């Protein structure tokens, strides 16, 4: 499982070297303070430079797909919460979307609005956590992370009062949403949304102009546009490399065409851009939230055709995808007419974004590797499933 010392000169700097000093092999992970859980990288170092980096997966392979194939469609919904466990609501949505495509269900307008609201809140949760962890990996002793989690808690409170659980929301259903908004929820959400920009300002004050942060982030882990497209990178990472591709705009799924928002794009494709794109994306999310909260209509929550129990779509297949906070989250379902999906497949953005990890890290030091890895923003539950 571990790679042997590389003998071939993979690195241009090495190529010039005299070739007698050996390369150092280090395994980062599976137990490593900053690999977001149980990820492992086998890194070959030349001094402190990364020459070769092989990600090793599977330490959290929980057989989600296999379990889903032996369970009913509904039973998989709570499992999707546990894929990308930071943003369960967008996972719910992606799965619901795929099933709705498969079964041809219509989602009522109110439910669509609620979906947008929860999904954008989820995006806020995810991005705050990501940049918080990112600073942690840069060695800040917890303060930015604490501030990020302070805001996250506020949104989690909203989730909890809506869905009953802080993280594992299990809220959406095929053809709608599970329960109505509780009393006072909208007001509370409006308040949180109003106050959120203040946190962003504070955070920028703390970090964006900080010389140490800039030195750590600018020019580090550059991802070129072409490579990003080729490797199927999606989400903020892709946009930080300058590609204008946001599924909310491209597919216009749900009701995203009703909102006025913009897509921030990076230019250099480095760590700093990936950080900034996330910061700016949060501000755009707030815009969407403002509009959605303003326009939320009354109406039913579920497609009357939808059934909770005994749900059996016609044989066929469907691929549904959404712009999850981490990138394109897709569900591919094959139905054979039985209550269980015949094939259930998750297209995990985290995993595929990792394809370019080696390309981004090569030539940078090991400390950079950790930071670059942080900006890929993965969640192991989704990578390994």
């Amino acid at each position, binding site marked *: 499982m571990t790679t042997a010392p590389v003998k071939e000169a993979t690195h241009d700097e090495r190529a*010039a070297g*005299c070739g007698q000093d050996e390369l150092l092999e280090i395994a980062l992970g599976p137990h490593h303070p900053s690999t977001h859980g149980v990820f492992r990288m086998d890194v070959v170092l030349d001094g402190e430079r990364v020459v070769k980096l092989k990600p090793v997966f599977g330490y959290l392979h929980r057989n989600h797909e296999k379990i889903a194939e032996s369970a009913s469609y509904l039973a998989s919904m709570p499992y999707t919460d546990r894929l990308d466990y930071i943003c369960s609501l967008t996972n719910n949505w992606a799965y619901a979307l795929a099933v709705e495509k498969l079964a041809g269900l219509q989602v009522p307008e109110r439910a669509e609005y609620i979906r947008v609201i929860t999904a954008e809140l989820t995006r806020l949760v995810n991005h705050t956590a990501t940049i918080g962890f990112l600073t942690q990996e840069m060695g800040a002793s917890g303060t930015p992370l604490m501030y990020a989690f302070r805001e996250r808690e506020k949104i989690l409170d909203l989730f909890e009062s809506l869905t009953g659980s802080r993280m594992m929301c299990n809220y959406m259903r095929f053809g709608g949403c599970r329960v109505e908004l509780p009393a006072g929820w909208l007001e509370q959400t409006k308040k949180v949304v109003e106050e959120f920009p203040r946190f962003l300002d504070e955070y920028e004050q703390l970090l964006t102009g900080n010389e140490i942060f800039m030195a750590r982030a600018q020019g580090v882990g550059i991802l070129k546009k072409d490579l990003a497209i080729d490797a199927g990178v999606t989400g903020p990472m892709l946009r930080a490399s300058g590609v204008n591709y946001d599924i909310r705009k491209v597919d216009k799924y749900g009701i995203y065409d009703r909102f006025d928002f913009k897509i921030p794009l990076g230019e250099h494709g480095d760590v700093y851009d990936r950080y900034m794109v996330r910061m700016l994306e949060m501000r755009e999310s707030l815009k969407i939230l403002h509009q959605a909260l303003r326009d939320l209509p009354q109406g039913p929550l579920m497609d009357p055709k939808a059934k909770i129990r005994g749900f059996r779509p016609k044989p066929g297949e469907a691929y549904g995808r959404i712009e999850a906070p981490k990138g394109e989250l897709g569900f591919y379902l094959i139905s054979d007419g039985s209550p269980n999906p015949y094939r259930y497949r998750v297209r995990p953005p985290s995993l595929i974004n990792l394809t370019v990890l080696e390309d981004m890290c090569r030539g940078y030091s090991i400390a950079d590797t950790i930071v670059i890895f942080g900006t890929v923003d993965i969640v192991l539950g989704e990578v390994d499933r």
Partner: protein
Amino acid sequence: MSFAIIAVFTVAGALAAMTLRNLVHCVLALVVAFTGLAGLYLQLGAQFVGFAQILVYVGAVAILIVFAMLLTQSHEPLAHLTVAPGWVTSSLVAVAVFVILAWSIRSSAVGARSIQPRPEITVRNIGDSLMSQFVVPLEVTGLLLTAALVGAVTIAMREQRMNR
């Protein structure tokens, strides 16, 4: 009394530095010897030199040796007590040198000298004479240090880095 303690430390350190198997242990023993020597300087009233000795030898030379060792010892952590073929002769030579030195010291007149009253040498004295009497040696030392820096760096640097 204190002389005896320091002397024993110093000699033991020096001996260990030359006989231990493990190179790192050798360096650590060497540090003990250096520190002991510094102690001897202090005993002799040369405070500044004593502390300078620690600063330079323990703080810098030992570190330099350690770095050099780690750079060169990646494969053989333990230097086997490889001795030169003519180690018997070599040791005999050393012993002979010591005997001769000791004999000459014993027989010389130095031993008869009595200690002078403690001279009040302060750092200020050293600074004064450094900037007056010893200005030329100072500049020469500066030149030497620069030359050593350039030389050592050039030698130790990798070829390809020089080319860049």
